[in-house]
């Protein structure tokens, strides 16, 4: 054999190794890729199950002011009842504590949630919570329009019940209009005009589309109204020095909804069915809402993420479930991604 023949044979042998290795890698790579996505899917389902079906530990951590982030032992958002439990019913107090200002002592940071869910540095997550039906309130020329949209399409014949509460400067009291009941048109819109020109006003809305109910308490006065929260049976973020305080409730009667108000005594507990408390502090209208994410017409979405500002990453896997909070239908979407590969 000539020296070139040895070299040629060697090159062929090496090429055979490279080719066969590449082929093995090419064949196994997609299988491993698909499998990793499947694992992420299962992991996302597992974490969402833990979040939605477990109340956490202590079970009343949402309304228990003594439980701070560091004393929370297990994370879960399910509503806890000693006698009755309903699947996929979330505790509004627990959800609210994810939506407070990051400097608030009751706020639960996502780093603590990562720790409690044992995710450590392996995974990142984001939770998105939004109403099952999109209800937007557009205030133009002192008129309120309600648009119901689902998946971007207008919803026809959604029942809309609305009542306006406003601060009357002359009487220095909170007054309300009578309830207005209407339905959306083919364009998904309906006009809800109360003809009230008060500066400080709060709109309470109930939208019902064949059993899918959305409640909203909307501040129509921007910074003219002070904002607080209802956590458990107490007010949070405002003092108890109220004049003419009232509790707003939504009651179902004879297949329809009635938005009603009763007096509130600050020293006493807030009724469990109360969705908002209104009061006057000085010349300010104060409103506290139990609904965790519908305080404003624009902010109808809660995003809670382990990476500030990111709701999802391109390689994240998402799982979605329908849940009930305070009788309103919401969708919760969990994005899960691996931090290391």
């Amino acid at each position, binding site marked *: *054999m000539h*020296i070139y023949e*040895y070299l040629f*044979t*060697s090159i062929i*042998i*090496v090429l*055979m*190794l490279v080719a*066969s*290795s590449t082929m*093995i*890698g090419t064949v*196994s790579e997609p*299988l*491993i890729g698909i*499998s*990793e996505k*499947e*694992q992420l899917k*299962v*992991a996302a*389902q*597992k*974490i969402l*199950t*833990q979040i939605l*079906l*477990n*109340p956490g*530990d202590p079970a009343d951590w949402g309304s228990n002011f003594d439980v701070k982030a560091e004393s929370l*032992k*297990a994370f879960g958002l399910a509503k806890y009842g*000693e006698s009755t*439990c309903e*699947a996929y019913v979330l505790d509004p107090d627990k959800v609210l504590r994810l939506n407070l200002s990051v400097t608030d002592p009751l706020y639960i940071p996502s780093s603590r949630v990562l*720790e*409690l*869910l*044992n*995710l*450590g540095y*392996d995974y990142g997550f984001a939770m998105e919570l939004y109403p099952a039906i999109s209800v937007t309130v557009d205030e133009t020329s002192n008129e309120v329009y309600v648009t119901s949209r689902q998946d971007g399409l207008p919803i026809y014949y959604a029942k809309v019940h609305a009542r306006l509460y406003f601060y009357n400067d002359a009487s220095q009291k909170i007054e309300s209009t009578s309830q207005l009941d209407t339905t959306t048109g083919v364009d998904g819109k309906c006009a809800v005009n109360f003809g009230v020109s008060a500066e400080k006003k709060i709109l309470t809305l109930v939208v019902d589309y064949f059993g899918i109910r959305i409640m909203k308490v909307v501040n129509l006065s921007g910074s003219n109204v002070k904002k607080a929260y209802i956590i458990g049976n107490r007010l949070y973020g405002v003092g108890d020095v109220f004049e003419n305080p009232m509790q707003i409730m939504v009651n179902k009667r004879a297949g329809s909804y009635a938005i009603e108000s009763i007096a509130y005594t600050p020293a006493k507990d807030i009724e469990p069915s109360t969705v908002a408390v209104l009061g006057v502090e000085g010349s300010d209208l104060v409103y506290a809402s139990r609904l965790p994410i519908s305080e404003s017409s624009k902010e109808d979405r809660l995003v809670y993420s382990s990476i500030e500002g990111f709701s999802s990453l391109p390689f994240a896997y998402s799982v979605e479930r329908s849940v009930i909070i305070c009788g309103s239908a919401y969708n919760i979407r969990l994005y899960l991604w691996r931090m290391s590969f």
Partner: protein
Amino acid sequence: MDVPLKHVIGTIALIGLVIAVGLSYTVLASYIEAEVARTQLEQIAEHVSLNLVEIVSLVNFANETGNVQMKIISLPSDLGGKAYLVRLINETGKGCFVQAELVTRNDVVASSIIPINSYETQLKLVTDGENPGTLEVRGEVKLIYYSGTVYGGDHDIVVWASKESFHETWAGIGLWESPGG
């Protein structure tokens, strides 16, 4: 017959190259095989931990003391002819997780976290190293033989959870078998 020295060197070099290529191929194929097995083990571990979380949620939801719930989980009997183990581990700093590993190769191992911090919560997991035992389920003849480790080839592998008291839930993995095997 005289053979030129260059031919001897060339032939030896070729033989050496063939052996080296053969070894490289074996190493590479073994690595890829291990990666595929690890991926399959990860799937198994994720499947077990998902079912464990679901059964714990179910028992906590029922909120009835003495309530034992179990679910038979379907797992492959082997991975490409290789036996594997499923373990429930509670490790300081890492928390609770399900680990699946090949019996013949301890380095081929995969784990899946259980999203509950078992050190602090009212959930107690029967993990690897703890004493095994048995559990009765609603008067059934078969029993749950629970332990922190199960062999993947076993029939009727179960995840189980039991509400021991108002504040305590026990959970783990085991086998669903008649007394005496």
